[in-house]
């Protein structure tokens, strides 16, 4: 894992001291709220419905056990004993008090963490594949480049006041687990004809009120010129992105309104200017950063396998967990383990301080001191020896973390919604809880197979509803809540935006509506191998609509 150098430590310490002083001046009345608000937002501190909310950056979703334990300590000492892991691979605390924020930031700085650029119109925390550096299908580990992007984008003087926020996602694998086509910039590792590794660059993707799939702006940017290319895109966006209308200020609108070719021409012109300059990545610097992400010195565990079918007979719950929550590892005898934060009836993404501590312990003992946060609001132990799986599972069972539902219907993304969020129009968490209770039975979930439900409590789409195979969007109607259902969304390399299928539903009707859609899919699918999404794409919208609403 990357360790802060002197520059990193100095800028985080400097910012912590600066913001601590600003908090002190706010509490004394020296600063007004109008003066303080932009300052607190630049440090990840929001005011929500009931309290402040502090959003802490987890760079590219990677942490060690020491950092994770610090989050547990903060939850226990300054908050209410739990944290909420988010679709940005970050963690949010929902109940901190303003006077405690300086102490929390000092605690974070002591483990090389902070909350800088988790809000505001700047380049946000870079996100990536939760299995980076471990996945069997990976071309290369994207985290060294993600770390270089973090360094380049942190406190970048030219890009601290962009037209709007800017999100970059990066993956080193052909199977996109980082939703790169729904980010302002998406980067995918690519190999050119000469066998060199570089980056496909996608631009102008996003969710929110105007969902768009990103467009390919360059099919191969060499490693050493990636920063220059990113800077070129940001310069064009900073110059031409709309500042007159907040809702049209993201780069996706610029690309859509101006056209890809026009934007590409501008970017290439800028690139011609900056290419080969100070942003060129020297190989020795790339090597230096990459060394931090070198694979662990894996003990030889080759030849060790787990017979899932046999284990399923002995212990069905363990078998289900093995079946769903493991991901193939590039090192023989190892697997990546997804720890579900989606217990039946739970709030997706929430973990208690003791659970956070337990995961830290497991990471330290069984995963070479590494863990990850996923954009689907789960946790990952990236490097677990197959021989240790049963031990890890037993600890997870004892701590309420062993739900074997990864990628199944109860593994939902869900935003905080109107229970917490000042922007929301409708509640999300109770909808997720009711759906998970309705489909709680493991055999029912297995019958349904891979199905992604994503729930947002407003059009800002923090719950990624546009890319749910089934999406649920809460809206306000006549003072009450109404839920629209979308079908056919997909966040992966076969990206698509879901379509609203018809009139919305009252909250208590939503689980039943989902069940009708699921039952129709099961009745119509061409065998268990055809997923919900594949069946929807084959059959089209009309029969699903009829199944849900009856014949017109």
């Amino acid at each position: 894992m990357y360790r802060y150098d002197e520059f990193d430590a100095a800028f985080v310490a400097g910012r912590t001291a600066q913001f601590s002083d600003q908090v002190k001046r706010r509490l004394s009345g020296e600063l007004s709220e109008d003066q303080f608000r932009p300052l607190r937002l630049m440090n990840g501190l929001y005011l929500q419905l009931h309290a402040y909310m502090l959003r802490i950056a987890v760079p590219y979703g990677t942490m060690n056990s020491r950092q994770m334990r610090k989050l547990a300590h903060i939850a226990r000492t300054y908050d209410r004993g739990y944290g909420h892991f988010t679709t940005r691979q970050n963690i949010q605390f929902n109940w901190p008090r303003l006077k405690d924020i300086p102490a929390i930031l000092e605690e974070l700085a002591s483990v090389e963490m902070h909350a800088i650029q988790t809000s505001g119109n700047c380049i946000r925390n870079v996100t990536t594949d939760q299995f980076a550096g471990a996945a069997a299908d990976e071309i290369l580990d994207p985290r060294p480049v993600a770390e270089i992007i973090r360094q380049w984008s942190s406190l970048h003087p030219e890009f601290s006041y962009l037209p709007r926020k800017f999100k970059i996602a990066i993956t080193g694998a052909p199977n996109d687990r980082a939703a790169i086509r729904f980010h302002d910039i998406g980067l995918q590792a690519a190999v050119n004809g000469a066998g060199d590794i570089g980056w496909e660059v996608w631009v102008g993707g996003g969710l929110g009120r105007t969902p768009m799939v990103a467009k390919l702006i360059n099919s191969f940017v060499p490693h050493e010129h990636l920063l220059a290319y990113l800077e070129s895109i940001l310069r064009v966006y900073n110059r031409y992105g709309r500042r007159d209308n907040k809702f049209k200020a993201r780069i996706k609108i610029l690309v859509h309104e101006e056209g890809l070719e026009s934007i590409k021409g501008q970017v290439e012109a800028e690139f011609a200017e900056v290419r080969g300059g100070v942003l060129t990545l020297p190989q020795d610097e790339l090597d230096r950063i990459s060394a931090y992400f070198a694979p662990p010195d894996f003990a030889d565990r080759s030849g060790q396998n787990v017979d899932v079918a046999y284990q399923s007979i002995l212990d069905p719950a363990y078998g289900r967990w093995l079946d769903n929550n493991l991901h193939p590892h590039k090192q023989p005898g190892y697997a990546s383990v997804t720890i579900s934060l989606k217990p039946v009836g739970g709030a997706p993404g929430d973990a208690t301080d003791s659970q956070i501590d337990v995961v830290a312990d497991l990471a330290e003992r069984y995963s070479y001191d590494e863990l990850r946060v996923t954009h689907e609001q789960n946790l990952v132990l990236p490097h677990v020896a197959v021989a240790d799986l049963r031990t890890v599972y037993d600890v997870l069972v004892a701590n309420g973390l062993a739900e074997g539902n990864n990628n199944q219907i109860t593994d939902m993304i869900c935003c905080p919604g109107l229970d917490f969020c000042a922007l929301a129009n409708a509640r999300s968490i109770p909808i997720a809880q009711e759906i998970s209770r309705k489909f709680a039975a493991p055999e029912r979930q297995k019958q349904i197979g891979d199905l992604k439900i994503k729930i947002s409590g407003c059009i800002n789409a923090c719950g990624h509803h546009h890319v749910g195979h089934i999406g649920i969007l809460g809206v306000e109607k006549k003072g009450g809540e109404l839920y629209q259902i979308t079908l056919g969304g997909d966040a992966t390399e076969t990206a698509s935006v879901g379509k609203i299928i018809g009139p919305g539903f009252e909250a208590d009707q939503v689980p039943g509506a989902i069940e009708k859609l699921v039952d129709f899919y099961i009745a119509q699918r061409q065998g268990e191998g055809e997923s919900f999404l594949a069946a929807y794409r084959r059959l089209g919208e009309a029969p699903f609509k009829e199944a849900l609403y009856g014949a017109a």
Partner: protein
Amino acid sequence: MEILTGNELTSGATVYLDGAGNWIEDLQAARLFAKEEAAERDAALAATKATGRIISLEIEEVSQEDGQVVPRRLRERIRAAGPTAPLTLNGQAYDRQHLGDDGHVSI
């Protein structure tokens, strides 16, 4: 009828202006402004803003039902009562934020 509500600076807790000019947690003790009291309402709002101790100030519509003050908007009902979703991780309700040891503030 209307009430004045906001979040207390230090804790962020939801608070309401009462009849004595204090900012308190209990919605039921909030001062109710009739339509013809708009001037008093606006004066209280301006005075509060000047203190800088209550943020995210809002005027909210309420009605009285069976002797209870009920905000018109669901958002406000949730602000008054706390999150509605049960926190199943530890079996407890989320509960709303409280002023606690930060003490009351008054204008």
